[in-house]
């Protein structure tokens, strides 16, 4: 009579896999990115030798849209154009909340976007804007202003993309 062979079940050896995982984890930890970065493009106006990308679309009507950031708040001006002929009440200045522009959260970015959306309704082909901050304005306010002038997130198209306002920003020399 033949011997009855019993096949013993071998247990899976997880030790080499553990070695591999233990070595991979520190490597992946070093290259993990938990914060995402983005960039905002800008050029210098006529100061640098490089003329930069220039306006995207040739304007049919002349408009040099400028946003001045100062202790009064935002001042919207446009050379050679009347920006908002129906607006005779609020004027070109968007004051800070509480009347004092002492911190970034005092600036009224929503109102700035709304006013620029009206300008965009009148000049739909223009995409350029000149930003003129005062010397003491914190960099954070400048970035938030560029966000407010780039797009209107309250107006979206059928594909849920925010309405583009003035994405080409040029930062000019500040007021002294």
């Amino acid at each position, binding site marked *: 009579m033949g011997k009855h062979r019993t096949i013993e079940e071998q247990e899976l050896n997880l030790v080499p896999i553990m070695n591999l995982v233990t070595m991979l984890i520190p490597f992946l930890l070093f290259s993990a*990115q938990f914060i995402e970065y983005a960039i905002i493009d800008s050029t210098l106006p006529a100061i640098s030798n490089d003329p930069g990308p220039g306006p995207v679309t040739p304007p049919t009507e002349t408009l040099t849209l400028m946003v001045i950031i100062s202790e009064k708040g935002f001042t919207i001006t446009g050379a050679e154009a009347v920006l908002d002929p129906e607006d005779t009440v609020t004027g070109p200045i968007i004051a800070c909340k509480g009347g004092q522009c002492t911190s970034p959260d005092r600036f009224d970015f929503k109102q700035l976007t709304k006013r620029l959306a009206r300008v965009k309704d009148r000049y739909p082909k223009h995409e350029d804007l000149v930003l003129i901050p005062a010397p003491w304005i914190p960099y954070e306010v400048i970035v938030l202003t560029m966000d407010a002038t780039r797009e209107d997130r309250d107006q979206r198209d059928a594909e849920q993309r925010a309405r583009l306002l003035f994405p080409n920003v040029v930062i000019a020399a500040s007021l002294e």
Partner: protein
Amino acid sequence: MAGLIKKKRRTFGQQGVQITSMMDMMTIILVFLLKSFSTEAVTVQASSDLQLPVSSALKVPKVAVNVVVTRTELLVDGELVLTLEAAKDEVTGGPSYRFPAAAKRDNKVMPLFERLVQKAETAKAIGAKTGSDEFGFKGQVLLQCDKRLPYSVIRDVMFTAGQAQFGEFRFVVIKGS
């Protein structure tokens, strides 16, 4: 009689380490880290003096000359160029920062200007030798600035870079919601 009753001896055999649960945990951590793996053109040194502003911008950073302006230092491609000095904000009266007057000439920050001119010449030489536009000089600068810096500091950096033929600026920000 009692001696005849043999007591069963308990043998304490070696028990293998239970690593199945540890494997489960490691696998989940590995999958999570694989998802977060990224090779980006921008590396930001974590520092209390460099807090980038949050923005709704979506453009992905690309490789360019890296200029970092913290509250205390100015670095170009990781090398210290100049130290900023503390000042008092004339309007708000709070703490502010500026470049030392001795480092400026005709509104240019001279140590930064010299370093950027060097970078521009190196890039042009590489572009000429390779004959390819891809490696040529493009005049682009990646600017990482602390959000608390006054615009006067940023303006000086931009003006100096413009004089050194770097006319295109890419402000690095943290992607917000």
